[in-house]
């Protein structure tokens, strides 16, 4: 985990990504709604609400194949690194990047791992709530989003609201219910000059919440 090298997609990763995107469409008919940003090959950090393992698959299904090949989801090593099989799925099939919540050495520092991905010109998908959320409200954001933006201000932060995934594949279930899903991509968020960490994180969270197309629903 300490030394991170991202090559272009392996055959396995290409097959997995095309297959999963096709499956995501068949099950959820997923559609991107570009509301404030446009599809682009710019380097980006997509940050999204997190309720299900399917979130990242749905989000990447909305990106083009070339973008998908250089966009990596950040996943928890505590979960995805637990067994050989999980590690194989996360890294060799989904090309996710694993970070540890209880890091010990400097090389394991989550921010330095994420920065090393960005420095290779790749994009990230992160879930700033830090865990799959089972409550009805969006959890407060962890500070990674702020730290990344301070360290690499040129990278766009795009809020992405993933709709309905908590109903399709709730935490603890393994069979998805086919329901229609949308992913709403909002306008880029950036740290304002002199903006404090806490204020920025609250604003980023509010920007994400504002993308929910049906805030009246309490599913």
């Amino acid at each position, binding site marked *: 985990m300490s030394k991170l090298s991202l090559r272009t997609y392996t055959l396995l990763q290409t097959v997995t990504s095309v297959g999963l995107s096709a499956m995501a469409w068949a099950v959820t*008919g997923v559609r991107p709604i570009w509301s404030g940003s446009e599809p682009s090959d710019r380097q980006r950090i997509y940050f999204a609400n997190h309720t299900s393992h399917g979130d990242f698959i749905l989000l990447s299904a909305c990106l083009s194949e070339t973008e998908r090949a250089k966009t990596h989801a950040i996943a928890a090593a505590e979960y995805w690194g637990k067994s050989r099989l999980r590690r194989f799925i996360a890294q060799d099939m989904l090309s996710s990047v694993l970070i540890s919540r209880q890091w010990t050495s400097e090389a394991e520092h989550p921010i330095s791992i994420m920065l090393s991905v960005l420095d290779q010109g790749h994009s990230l998908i992160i879930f700033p709530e830090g865990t799959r959320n*089972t409550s009805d409200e969006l959890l407060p954001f962890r500070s990674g989003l702020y730290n990344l933006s301070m360290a690499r201000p040129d990278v766009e932060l795009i809020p992405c609201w993933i709709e309905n995934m908590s109903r399709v594949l709730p935490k603890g279930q393994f069979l998805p*219910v086919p329901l229609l899903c949308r992913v709403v991509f909002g306008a880029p968020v950036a740290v304002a000059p002199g903006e404090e960490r806490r204020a920025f994180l609250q604003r980023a969270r509010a920007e994400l919440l504002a993308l929910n197309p049906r805030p009246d*629903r309490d*599913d």
Partner: protein
Amino acid sequence: MRHEISILIIGLFVVLSTASVTAAILSARAPKPLSSTLVNLRQRINAWWVMVALMTVAFFFGRYGMTILFALISFAALREFVTLTHSRRSDHWVLLGMFGIVIPFQYWLVWTAWYGLFVIFIPVYCFLLMPAITALHGDTERFLERVSAQQWAIMISVYCVSHVPALLTLNVPGFEDRNLLLIAFLIIVVQGSDVLQYIFGKLFGKHRFSPNVSPSKTWEGLIGGLVASSLLGALLSFITPFSPLQASAVAFIACTMGFLGGLVASAIKRDQGVKDWGHLIEGHGGMLDRTDSLVFAAPIFFHIVRYFWTV
């Protein structure tokens, strides 16, 4: 039967070509950029080409084609319905069962022509067992709303829709092996009625039928559409076991039910705060936006034919 199918296909081709040419002429004469009505009209006509092509292909595969096609239509419709209505985490297994058990089983009953169970499986067994499962989960929050939405979802999307391919199981004396034409008659008349109501409404519509439910439905559209589709029914009597007069009466009843189906669907959408069920069919909306009339017409048509024409 080949003869009748050829006539139908040629007829549909002529109608759609006329529609496409008309829309092209209207667009050429209209000021640019085109009005949203005109853009929508062109999208609708293009989608009709695709839908007619898909139906035609399914037709050539006969019983297989029809059963699989309508099972898929049920899937798309159920997905739209369940997406729109309220559910909770504890409903997961019931929702899974609706897709994974109810749809396949209902269409298996259609396939094997097990009429006795086909008519009661959903209204009796699912009606009683699904809320029982929900109750066993112990989550009573908005219980009645959740179980009602589930009942409605499978009644509309699975039970009613499955009556279309079930027409193939009816035994009409002197009409053996030609039941596919009953499906063609029902679909052409009911969908034709939708189109005719739209045309009459756009041309002559003045008096709203029910402004609270659906602002686009007018008395002029309704009356013009129903009269014209009854005539269309009489015209198509040659593909049915009905006389021309009977055919127009059956078409009238089916299209009236179709109109009511559209009205009920509008009321549900309005209650849930959306304009369309989904985005599956460009220009039309979701699967249920296109099939809401068929949903209400199919079971009534099925039972009229079964009661008066089968032995």
